[in-house]
């Protein structure tokens, strides 16, 4: 089990590190239920984010499962709850 839960702020940071900052979107806003596509992140950006979370937090994350997460809430649930 990971040492701690991954937070929305962790996810924000890793998205930006791995896939950059989209134009015209306030990532700092209330994005927990906004679809990644609407945030400007495509499926490869999510794959890259999943790989980085695996590296950084040693949380094994299946690529196919990660690709099914449509929003930050769904993604965090996958990471934190398995």
């Amino acid at each position, binding site marked *: 089990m990971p040492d701690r839960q991954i937070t929305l702020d962790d996810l924000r940071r890793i998205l930006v590190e791995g896939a*950059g900052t989209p*134009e015209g979107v306030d990532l700092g806003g209330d994005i927990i239920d906004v679809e990644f596509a609407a945030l400007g992140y495509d499926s490869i950006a999510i794959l890259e984010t999943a790989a980085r979370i*695996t590296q950084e937090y040693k949380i094994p994350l299946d690529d196919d499962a990660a690709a099914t997460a449509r929003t930050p809430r769904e993604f965090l649930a996958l990471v934190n709850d398995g």
Partner: protein
Amino acid sequence: MSAVVTGIGVTSPNGLGTEAYWAATCRGESGIGEVRRFDASRYPARLAGEVPGFVPEEHVPSRLLPQTDHMTRLALTAADWALADAGFAPGDVPAYAAGVVTASSAGGFEFGQRELRNLWSKGGRYVSAYQSFAWFYAVNTGQTSIRHGLKGPSGVVVSDGAGGLDAIAQARRQLRNGSRLILSGGVDGSICPWGWVAQMAGGGLSTGADPATAYLPFDARAAGYVPGEGGAILVVEEAESARARGARHVYGEIAGYAATFDPQQGTGREPGLRRAIELALKDAGAAPDEVDVVFADAAGIPELDGVEAGAIRAVFGPGGVPVTAPKTMTGRLYAGAGSLDVAAALLAIRDGRIPPTVNVVPEPAYGLDLVVGGPREAAVRTALVVARGHGGFNSALVVRAAA
């Protein structure tokens, strides 16, 4: 059907931006210097033409930075500038009538080297998801197409140094097939250790340490070439369509083109370059005496210089046409070279000025009227651009002032 160039974007070792490049080129300013992108001090070849003052964050959106090689960032920048120069706005032509055809020699080598290092030193989970396409030959075409919503016929041409011309020819074919606008040309570069050793294996790199003497095509001292990065992206449009949308300017027409392949070495048969030049002139309906300047491939390797000089003499006669090689100021840009020379030819038409070949003392035996010692003022209406690629690719392209 006539294919015309309505926009130019340049990222060159001697100038970032079309006008910076052209001004430096006419002044004879070289961008060749010691390699800065990596420590090349212990390699036999240590000089390159690198694009100066390029800050990626100033030109490329944040979302694209983690997924792009250096040469793709240069290409995206050149494409932005070409479309802006053409005054093109999305919607000016239907999305499926506008495409992208670029040339590439090696894809995103520097990006690929980093990810291969991650693979072997840390493991597969540490390889960027973006490696899936960032290394790929077609990546500049794909990224440009996505960024500007150009959904029409697109592709990549991989023919080493001939590619910059071959891509523009493919753009013209797509216009003949019914497309209205094709963004075309080449921006290339692989100045990283992996790319460097691959280029060294080709055997043509200059080991000279002095930027003023390391790359001397058509000179008795010629001993290889200096590689570079960058190139040009051109907006190539069907002439009537360009007029209908109110294109700001027409630099000239892609009037003729041909490509040939060299015979197998050792057969004693003539190399294909002369035939490429003759076929391109025929395609343009231009007689040799109508050509006002030749932009040479200028390999900087004695045998290849001899073949090119022989082909030019055979078509135009000894000293029969001004010949220039502005790539003596940039190094050889692989797939970027041909399209940058097409840009230079179009600007020579615009300004009535042939840019010089720098540092070279012409070898008299080649029988070329090489433009040295400064630019030459001359009315230029028709220009021939020659480009060759490793392994036998020969391409020739004729540009002509707009009617």
